[in-house]
């Protein structure tokens, strides 16, 4: 019989899960606010090079800088870009703290582009306002974060995958159970407060290339946090508002409206003509992109071949050294040269990512999920279009609030029976003699997502998809791992399956079309504000079944003008008559 005493238990005040962008900031802030508190940063890879910004970031996409933009204007723009379905208080909170965070990062040594007068060199990419701030030296941002983690004495545990959150008998989160990715050691981290920062769910759909890891998102971001939040009873929101992004065909780097747009590059059709007013990523923009791909004018291209040599060199310098630096190598292999021809583009697989769209674990303006003691930040949490700076801001908010929550709480009691049964469940694939390898399980699952769940969404297809995915739940007990690494993949695949089921459930619940391509529901082609001007919350009901419900939109703190409301509906360029 296994005893709890056989399992390593670590006690900590604040546990932060995920060491990419939001996570380090949450951990650092928690220590800054209360240096006596113990703070652990748990990371599936290594915090030195983990998460969406493992190789840095080429700029801020949503900087709200006095003199260029106001928090009110930004909140309006994000409200409009999301067809009104936002927690405005949450967006405004971000916007109001945005400049403070830029200054904080600037003080830490992150270099933001400045003009000849020493002011931030902000560029216009969005439809209405001006928010894009280049970071030409952005490749070193992880190093800067790492230094701060060390200086603040955050306890870093690398190479542990968190599998399930724990809660006490009051329903308050009390830590997590995790497994070592190299030794399959199961450990328990008992914590007074937990901040989830596990990034996007980027492995739901299968990239068109068929390569499992050729995803838009860093594939370590597979929805661990979405799955953990769901199982512990938290609500998730807007999951039907998929993330789908414009990419270079076959290469999973963004085509980069934010980098090339301000320098004169744009998205064009096969004739070299612009067809969208604004390259800022929104569902409406993606709808026009999709329509053009399907039309006689397709496919779609990134057009730079009209630019001056020095401009192209500047673009190459940024795009080929930052964020996704293997892009240059990809172009070399294909003989692509920005100077001489347009580069083919395509659309990404589906995913959940609040960084770019609006789907994730529901949080309010304090970073609180619907479960006490559990906070969320970054691509995983529901504040829309938050990008890297939003991850930092909400990491900061969560760190502050989580350490305060922990201060008023004793070390929680552990649920021994739950921990022991989870340990057996987690390790089961290693105990089998043979069975289904995780890679085959995951390939099939993600192929089904592409076949049945990606837009255009059709009820009958999603019905079949949901059934096929539920059939796959029965395969879990046959998953087979030969070593701890394959066990990591087996556990990830189960989280991916949870996310795929959530995508289907939420999509079928919202019986209208909204957010352009993100929720293009063929059976319900119109936007229906009368019935569906609301959030869709997904949660685990009392029978442990996946369920959805409506959540009314909180009254706006900033009203929109009638004309502004439709600004993002008019994406397609009107032909001059």
């Amino acid at each position, binding site marked *: 019989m296994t005893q709890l005493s056989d399992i390593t238990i670590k006690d900590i005040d604040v546990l932060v899960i995920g060491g990419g962008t939001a996570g380090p900031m949450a951990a650092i802030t928690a220590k800054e606010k209360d240096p006596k508190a113990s703070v652990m940063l748990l990371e599936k890879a290594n915090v*030195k090079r983990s998460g969406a910004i493992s190789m840095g970031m080429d700029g801020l996409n949503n900087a709200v800088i006095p003199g260029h933009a106001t928090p009110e204007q930004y909140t309006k723009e994000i409200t409009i870009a999301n067809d009104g379905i936002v927690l405005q208080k949450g967006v405004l909170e971000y916007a109001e703290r945005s400049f403070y965070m830029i200054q904080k990062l600037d003080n830490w040594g992150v270099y933001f582009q400045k003009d000849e007068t020493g002011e931030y060199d902000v560029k216009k990419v969005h439809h209405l306002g001006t928010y894009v701030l280049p970071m030409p030296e952005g490749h070193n941002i992880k190093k800067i974060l790492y230094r701060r983690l060390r200086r603040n004495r955050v306890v870093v545990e690398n190479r542990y995958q968190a599998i399930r959150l724990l809660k006490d008998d009051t329903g308050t989160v009390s830590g997590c159970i995790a497994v070592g990715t190299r030794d399959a050691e199961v450990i328990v981290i008992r914590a007074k407060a937990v901040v989830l920062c596990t990034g996007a769910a980027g492995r739901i759909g299968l990239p068109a*290339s068929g*390569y499992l890891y050729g995803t838009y998102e860093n594939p370590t971001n597979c929805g661990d946090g979405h799955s953990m939040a769901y199982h512990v009873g938290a609500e998730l929101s807007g999951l039907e508002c998929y993330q789908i992004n414009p990419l270079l065909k076959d*290469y999973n780097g963004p085509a980069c409206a934010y980098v090339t747009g301000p320098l004169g590059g744009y998205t064009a059709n096969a004739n070299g003509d612009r067809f969208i007013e604004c390259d800022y990523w929104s569902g409406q923009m993606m709808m026009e992109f999709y329509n053009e791909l399907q039309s006689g004018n397709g496919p779609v291209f990134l057009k730079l071949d009209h630019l001056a040599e020095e401009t192209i060199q500047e673009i190459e310098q940024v795009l080929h050294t930052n964020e996704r630096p293997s892009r240059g190598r*990809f172009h070399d292999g294909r003989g692509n040269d920005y100077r001489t021809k347009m580069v083919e583009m395509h659309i990404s697989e589906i995913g959940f990512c609040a960084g770019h769209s609006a789907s994730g674990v529901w949080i309010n303006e304090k970073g609180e999920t619907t479960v006490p003691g559990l906070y969320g930040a970054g691509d995983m949490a529901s504040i829309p279009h938050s990008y890297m700076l939003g991850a930092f801001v909400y990491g900061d908010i969560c760190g502050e609030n989580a350490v305060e929550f922990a201060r008023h709480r004793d070390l929680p009691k552990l649920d021994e029976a739950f921990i022991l049964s989870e340990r057996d469940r987690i390790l089961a694939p290693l105990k089998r003699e043979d*069975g289904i390898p995780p890679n085959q399980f995951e390939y099939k699952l993600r192929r089904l997502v592409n076949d049945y769940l990606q837009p255009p969404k059709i009820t009958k297809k999603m019905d079949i998809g949901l059934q096929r995915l539920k059939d796959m739940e029965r395969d879990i007990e046959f998953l087979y791992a030969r070593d701890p690494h394959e066990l990591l993949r087996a556990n990830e695949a189960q989280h991916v399956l949870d996310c795929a089921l959530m995508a289907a459930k939420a999509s079928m619940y919202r019986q209208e079309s909204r957010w352009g391509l993100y929720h293009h529901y063929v059976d319900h082609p119109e936007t229906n504000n009368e019935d569906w001007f609301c959030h869709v919350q997904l949660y685990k009901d009392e029978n442990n079944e996946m369920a959805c419900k409506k959540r009314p939109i909180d009254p706006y703190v900033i009203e929109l003008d009638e004309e502004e409301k439709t600004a993002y509906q008019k994406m397609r360029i009107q032909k001059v008559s």
Partner: protein
Amino acid sequence: MPTANQITMVPVVVDNDKCIADKGCRTCIDVCPLDVLWIDEKTGKAHMRYDECWYCMPCEADCPTDAVTVNIPYLLR
């Protein structure tokens, strides 16, 4: 359930003459987000053990002896 061993060309290539993993270096293994680089027990050098690459390049960028090259996976090339 019978299984098969299929061959795969991997994207990350390590130059064994330059690699100093046998002297204790673990840089590329440490930084790989997907944890696909391991020590080859026969040579003591680093090698790509699992074809699960995001071609993100920390392994190449951080290698102290320039032993690592990241290629684009064949399916994408």
